[in-house]
């Protein structure tokens, strides 16, 4: 194992032992052109035979999926943002989402939806949201220059991290790194232990209620092997979801960001593109128009196993210390 295998920039496929691995493949999701059609959600379920996720009106703007789960591997978040400096569409104090409730039964604990996306739900709420001791929610208000009402849409997906916590903790080898650098669960090996679920810094991977196994986006590993585009990207009508070699996508994303910022979208940013971040950069990264929290994304994700070497070091030191003290103790008795 290379010294930096648990954090920092690496080529994950090579690191995993593939010789002459093909280029790392991934998604660049440009939320600035997303029209919220949810074709990605449907195409994903059609191709991967993912079951439906229940018929529940969630009241989270037009999001009735609630979040990424075992039964939704793409999830389109909708965030309604009132104007900051109001002109024609003033912010209305009455518009409160009652609660970020979700009836989706696929969360790790019954009745509790995937925690991260509760934040996305909260993006639509007003000041009285859940009585939390915060004056307002991320992106809901501020001193920005934006004068118009905004409706943000973003198709979320597994990030296929460079350093994937889920993979690192999987005891059965069900989760593995593919030659394309993506992370895939093998459903015939998964034993449903669930270790991967808290290990994911994004709250993506999830156990299916009726079979107990862990499920998530495979980046259509079966299609990739045949040289096909993943189903979601293929179905996206506006090329919000772009699939390709990660290096190429990163260049394209940089150019797109520069254009948007030139056009005055000063809050536009890339998310998951930085290879120096806590997961070594994402295989599926995003162009966002606001802070990550607005979309229900953690601002500073870190793979839990990043600290594994440190922990081992400390554990080792502690062990050494214990040995030393034992030695001292015995030595003292002899004296």
């Amino acid at each position, binding site marked *: 194992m290379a010294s930096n295998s648990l954090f920092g920039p690496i080529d994950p496929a090579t690191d995993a032992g593939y010789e002459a691995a093909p280029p790392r493949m991934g998604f660049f999701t440009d939320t600035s*052109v997303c*029209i*919220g*059609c*949810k*074709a990605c*959600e*449907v195409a994903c*379920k*059609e191709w991967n035979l993912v079951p*439906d*996720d*229940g*018929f*529940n*009106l969630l*009241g989270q*703007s*037009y999001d*009735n*999926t609630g979040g990424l789960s075992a039964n939704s591997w793409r999830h389109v978040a909708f965030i*309604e943002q*009132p104007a900051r400096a109001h*002109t*024609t*569409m*003033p*912010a*209305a*104090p*009455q*518009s*409160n*989402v*009652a609660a970020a409730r979700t009836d989706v039964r696929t969360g790790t604990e019954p009745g509790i939806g995937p925690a991260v996306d509760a934040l996305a739900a909260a993006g639509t709420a007003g000041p009285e949201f859940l009585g939390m001791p915060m004056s307002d929610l991320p992106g809901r208000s501020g001193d920005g220059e934006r004068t*118009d*009402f*905004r*409706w*943000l*849409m973003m198709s979320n997906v597994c990030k296929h991290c460079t350093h994937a916590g889920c993979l690192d903790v999987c005891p059965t080898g069900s989760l593995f790194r593919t030659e394309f650098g993506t992370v895939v669960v093998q459903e015939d090996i998964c034993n449903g232990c669930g270790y991967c679920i808290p290990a994911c810094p994004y709250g993506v991977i999830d156990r299916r209620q009726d079979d107990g196994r862990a499920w998530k986006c495979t980046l259509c590993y079966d299609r990739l092997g045949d040289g096909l585009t993943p189903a979601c990207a293929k179905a996206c*009508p*506006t*090329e919000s979801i772009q699939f390709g070699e990660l290096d190429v996508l990163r260049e394209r994303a940089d150019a797109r960001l520069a254009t948007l910022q030139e056009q005055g979208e000063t809050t536009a940013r890339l998310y998951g593109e930085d290879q120096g971040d806590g997961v070594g950069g994402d295989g599926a990264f995003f162009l966002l128009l606001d802070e990550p929290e607005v979309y229900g994304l953690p601002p500073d994700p870190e793979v839990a196993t990043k600290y594994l070497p440190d922990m081992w070091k400390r554990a080792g030191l502690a062990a050494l210390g214990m040995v030393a003290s034992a030695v001292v103790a015995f030595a003292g008795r002899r004296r």
Partner: protein
Amino acid sequence: MGSNMAEAHPVGFQWVVEAKLRGAKVIHIDPRFTRTSALAHTFVPVRAGADIAILGGVINYILTNEKDFREYVLAYTNASTLVSEDFRDTEDLDGLFSGYDPETNTYDQSSWAYQGHEEELGGTTHTERETAAGLQQESHGPPIPGDVARDDTLQDPRCVYQVLKRHYARYTPEVVAQICGVPEEKFLEVCEAWTRNSGRERTTALVYSVGWTQHSVGVQYIRTGAIIQLLLGNMGRPGGGVMALRGHASIQGSTDIPTLFNLLPGYLPMPTYDQHETFREWVDSIRHPGQKGFWANAEAYAVSLLKSYFGDAATAENDWGYGWLPRMTGDHGTYQQVMDMIDGKIKGYFLLGQNPAVGSAHGRAQRLGMANLDWLVVRDPYMIESATFWKSGPEIATGEIKTEECRTEVFFMPAASYAEKEGTFTQTQRMLQWREQAVEPPGDARSELWFFFHLGRRIRERLAGSTLPRDEGILKLAWDYPMHGARGDEPDAAEVLKEINGYDLTTGQLLTTFNQMKPDGSTSGGCWIYTGVFADGVNQAARRRPGQEQSWVAPEWGWAWPANRRILYNRASADPDGRPWSERKAYVWWDTENNEWTGHDVPDFEKTKPPSYRPPEDATGVQAISGDDAFIMQGDGKGWLYAPSGLIDGPMPTHYEPAESPARNPLYGQQANPTRKVYDRPDNLTNPSPPERHSEIYPYVFTTSRLTEHHTAGGMSRQLPYLAELQPEMFVEVSPQLAAERGLHHLGWAHVITARTAIEARVLVTDRLVPLRIEDRTIHQIWLPYHWGNEGVVTGDSANDLVGLALDPNVLIQESKVGTCDIQPGRRPIGPALLRYVADYQQRAGLAPDHHTPIVTTSEDGNHGEQ
């Protein structure tokens, strides 16, 4: 405007996104903030039903500031044409044009004519309204003489330019704000962006959908948009135009080869019993002998159609079988049919690809009508509400339909879906695209083609030997197609497309252009505008050459009528001398070396007629079209800023309030369209609007439309878990202010009430709807999707049950995009209590069964003045 393109046409919207990436500015004008608004640069909220006011304001801005593309306007529009001295405007007559007949509520249009032609256009237009005659103008303008008086200085007070200027002079930014609720600075931003981006170097495209058409003034909405695009020189040019996004796949195809009562293929009119007794009368009513334009050849198209229908049985001696065609006797439109069903005048009904119990306006009338038939045939992939209304429709609960007493025998025929059959779609750009059959349909499901062919075959077998005159037409039909497919009984759709394309019957060769059609019976063709789709024996609609392998016009992707032309009237993309208006916008031009029209597209002009051509004085037909008459299908060769004929409700669009409105028309005493088609009956009550009293009983404006996640009446989406889960429940969107006013809670229940019924829905409180300031009051608008019914994986009340029947007079489309209502928290009453609840509202609104909504409300008419 009037379009939620990103949600209703997400695949087409990719091109808007691409245009945006290339620097185009996108403006969205709509009653609520939609997913389309989210992608637009500018969103302008507007009151539903007030689009002519805002567009009229744009016209006023253009004319007042002289922002029109003057050279284009002078050359290609009728701006300089003089209008009759007898013409009186709505500005003079309090909202009516001259010639109004209060008996029939239609106009005698002779005073609207061009100067000197008043005699040629007499009589009321009652019949035209009953037969939705406006639909004939999809491919060509109404007849009008070409020899007209003009004033090229545009100074004569009777010239169209000045008439138009006076007509819209009062549509100022202040008035627009007052009527539409659009802030003045937003409105001016639209005006400036639109005019700045139009002219020699730039063009602006206008996109609308059924948010414009489904109004009692729907056709005039579109006219207003067309006037602006003509004034700014955006017609017939790349990047310009008026783009009509259709409501379904191949709705364009179903008007070209119509499923309408009043048209035959290629926009030939269906004959009426009293006006078109003989073949000659019918053909002359289309081609107008002595006038100029391409319709002079209509006889060839008509004879070729009859040859396709009747084959060898159509001869010169029997007028090509004209006598076997059915005749219209009045309004046979879909809503008249529903009334006739309720009244027991219609016995049988076929429903194909349609679910009127959910998808058509006034759902209760639809269901009560269907419950009063002898038989009903429903063909659909799923068991839809129109097939089950007799056992589980809303009227079962109220007791209005009793299953054991319902007399209708329903035959449900499983239908193949689009992937299970072959054929063409014709999309909004008149483009035919062939689709292959992907899989065999399951079980007994069959294609429409299979169904109709074998139904016809069996009927003909049953009628064989009949000597009854009424059976003759069916027995004489050329009803013979080669079979293929897995079962060997599927008619070959390509053979049908060939029949539509047409043959030279003397050689058996397929025609390549409709110019080859002859009136002597030696050619056939099922739809003259589609001739060429099988040119050279090749299915041109099946072409799929990728865009990067051909020119940017992409002529080898599918096939567009007419003649694979991608932009109509593209002669206007060159100046009168035949040179492109600018290099940047070059499209079609006159090649001086080869003496012919050439360019990126198929020129919409006679190939070798030079720009300098002027017709001899006595010329008629095609010969009479000048070298600079870009609008070749118009009688005078010009784009019409002012329509002297062809529209039932006026030569220029005028702001009328919707048939149901909480506001008094601020411009005229005349409240609503005085020529709108009404079905004034107790089962189709209209909510009161000013100047009638009690409009406060239904104080809010509602509008309905679609969600991306569902397909129209839900037959193909509410049945599918993957789609149903994305929008699982019927809901209503309200602004936070209205929620506070009515005590509505997010995700709680509410019900919406009109004079027709009450429906319930979950509440979504959202900032995407804003109350509008109209004059001195606040107008709240609510929005409902119309996808739900009582069958399927997810069910709910149907929004169309709220809608009453008031129709546009030109094409008989219902006003389903705006109405008035009340909204209250909680669920609606169920069972007979619902009927009592609705009746209580009606009573408080003064809607007794004998109530009649006043049509004329001008101040001269004392009975209906302000109260």
